[in-house]
């Protein structure tokens, strides 16, 4: 690669990649967004109120398997 090609390549690269300023800090304060995300966590945990329903389903499933063992190979067939 001769010098002309190197210069051309350098110019193309400079055009393609935007220059990084000396001040590389984010344009906006990210901490409020982080706080919002942390506040959203308890709301997600509130969904675990469904845990009793899921537990009842699991117990029902175990009961079905216990009273009707023929259901076990049938369920495994579909898994």
């Amino acid at each position, binding site marked *: 690669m001769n010098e002309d090609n190197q210069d051309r390549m350098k110019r193309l690269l400079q055009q393609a990649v935007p220059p990084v300023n000396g001040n590389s800090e984010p344009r906006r304060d990210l901490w409020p967004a982080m706080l919002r995300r942390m506040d959203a966590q308890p709301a997600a945990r509130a969904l675990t109120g469904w845990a009793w329903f899921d537990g009842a389903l699991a117990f029902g499933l175990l009961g079905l398997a216990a009273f009707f063992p023929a*259901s076990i190979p049938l369920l495994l067939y579909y898994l």
Partner: protein
Amino acid sequence: MNTHPYLRAYLAGIFVPTLVMPLLLTVFIVVRIVLKVPVPIEQGMIFPMAIVPSLFGLWNMLWLGSHESTHLPIGLHGAVLPLLMAPTGALVATCLGVLALGSHGATWFQACEIPYALIAPFFVGALAGYYLVWKYIVGFLNRVLGIA
């Protein structure tokens, strides 16, 4: 990690059937080869080994592609799958001679007869099982793989 989300969804979907498959193979080896029980369970292995894993993977890909518009929780999405799989599995089993439909009930492997009255609770059990598997296992894997 935003590359290949559908591949990750497929892999998360096939996780559970892939775990169950060695269990079925063990049962097959013990029953058919060790105990030499004259029940043709190898024909019944085709559906769980060849079709179920792919269906799980594709179903999870469908959830990934549709949940932004439907907002359907993954547990409910998974609980819909037996509605598709039960007739498909019964059809495959009937074609392979694994399932025979009689006047009083369905006979599996020419040995296990299940009265029609029990089909409904078994189906509800399948819905519950799928709901739990999809909510807690596939949902967890989707979160781990960064697609949920």
